């Protein structure tokens, strides 16, 4: 494979936007763990509520094993999810280079997605309700490859998210 010697693809850090030799992924804001945490708590509370409502309104006698067992399972799943969030957090990161943007994640299953700048269709900064309350944003990058190939970088400070957004937009318009 012949590599064109003039081609470079060095790392760009969001603050400096200047090429640096080190290949390092930028981590997400630590507050992002909260976002997943809050989401899981809400889910747990909701599940318990539904369960207890069901028990309250049911006409049959529910064996005590189920009465204790099912909530226990819910809590167990919650703890599992919590540990995944906490241990999986350091594995999440994004990387801006001269020619592409990448995002990686995953504890048990590692996934790295890279989108070259000249394939970006458009970029978006968004916040869901939980992210808004914690004060974080999410950067979404869209390509033409259907929604599955899109990149979504969560856990960014709104200012940084917009900074990266403008950087990407400038790269996109460069190629058009």
């Amino acid at each position: 494979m012949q590599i064109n010697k003039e081609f470079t693809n060095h790392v760009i850090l969001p603050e400096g936007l200047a090429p640096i030799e080190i290949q390092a992924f930028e981590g997400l804001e630590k507050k992002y763990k909260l976002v997943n945490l809050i989401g899981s708590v809400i889910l747990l509370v909701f599940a318990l509520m539904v369960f207890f409502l069901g028990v309250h309104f049911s006409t049959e006698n529910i064996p005590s094993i189920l009465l204790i067992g099912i909530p226990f399972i819910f809590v167990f799943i919650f703890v599992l999810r919590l540990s995944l969030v906490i241990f999986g957090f350091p594995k999440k990161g994004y990387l801006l280079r001269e020619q592409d943007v990448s995002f990686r994640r995953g504890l048990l299953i590692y996934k790295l997605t890279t989108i070259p700048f000249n394939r970006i269709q458009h970029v978006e900064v968004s916040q869901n309700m939980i992210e808004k309350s914690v004060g974080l944003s999410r950067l979404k990058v869209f390509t033409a490859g259907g929604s599955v190939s899109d990149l979504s970088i969560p856990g960014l400070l709104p200012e940084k998210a917009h900074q990266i957004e403008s950087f990407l937009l400038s790269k996109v318009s460069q190629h058009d």
Partner: protein
Amino acid sequence: MIFVFEVQQKLRAYWPILILIFAQKKLLPASITIPMASGIVILLMLVHALLFYLNFYFYIEENQFVIKKGYIQKKVLSIPLDRIQSVNTKQNLLQQLLKVYSLEVDTAGSAAKELKIYSLSAAYTQHLTQFLQSHKENAKEEPSDSISTAHEAKEIIKLSPSDLLRIGISQNHLKTGIIIFVFGSQIMGQIKDLFQEETDAYSDTFQNILSNSSILFYAGFIMVALLVSILATLLYTMFKYYDFKLVKHPESYKITAGLFNKREVLLPFKKVQQLNWETGPIKKMFGIFKISFRQAVSKQIQQKQVVDAPGCLKQDIESIREELFQGDLPDDSEKIYSHWRYFNLLWIQGGWLPALLPTPIYVYEPLWLLAGGAWLLFSGIYCWMVLRKSYFQFNQSQLIVGKGGINTQWQQAESFKTQSVDFRQSFFQKRRGLASLRVHNASGHINIPYIPEEIAHQLMNYLLYHVETSDEKWM
């Protein structure tokens, strides 16, 4: 210059459609007000049809193709002429009788709009199609022999009824069989509700038959079901691909096919993102392959943009591949097969999980363990077949992936058409130095499972490098 075409035949086309829709409504449960209700419905539809027809315009103005439609909510769709990729036509049975066409304009870009014109006469259709297409080709500064498209055309594939017969027999009957079964049971259920008493009497006799029946009966039943499904697939194939022709034009293919729903699709080479072709045990006996051209999927129009030829010969595939893909074919490159551990993943997903799911049944009825064991065995064999066929080949410009179980499938895409790349590595893969890649393009993705980590990294980096240095337009 502004041309204003008024769609004359539109009203005529709508009348019969109204009848069709009205006929369908008759299936609703009968009630006294039906004559009144249907009368109102017909009136409304007539009014709608008339208003729609009166408010539908299309014209060409200053290099834009414009469609104005709608009477309550007025819509104006306009598209620059040089963003028109291809113009396709369709004719359903009704339109064939009335000798009118539906025209559909395909555009580039993610903001694809629905540019459809119903009920154009044959003359208009031809003129408009040629005008739109010639204008695009002139914009590319090509020799303008494009008006008479017949000159450079070369017929690649032509399917006669007997070809279609062979193709129909070799199609996937299991799927049709399942569809028929589902539909059949639905209809059976409805009939049962309608004729409750009669079916009660029948079910008694039926149950008697069931309990007294022998294996012969079941075998006979399965045979009949199989025959029905084969017949259904045959008919479907014959109607959908009737008089199928694939013709090569300078920069595109033109496909015409269909009996009750005639269609004409122009497929510019540039639009093809990925090519899939496959064969199977029965297809091999007839020496036929199925080929499908995958185009960009637009997010707005959630349509499957798959254009396919149900049956062609191996040499047709070879010539199509050479015409479609610029650059050398990677057929001489080394075939890199998926690691044998891929079998573990497949077997666990497809064999063990489904087998272990009905564990409670095993506890109650130990005999079912035999069924579970048989499933494990057959799924194991199938997974092994999938493993053996899983490989990829690569050169600078193209990627080919081989896959399949009972059928054998190939997928080919050009490197510069890549949209993004996923590198995936599970905990177990990391321990063995393996990884999987998923290469996305505008029509979907191509999976490369369980290859050495090092090669996965190299391939990913090279694909990205190729995309980032390539000026070629992927569409």
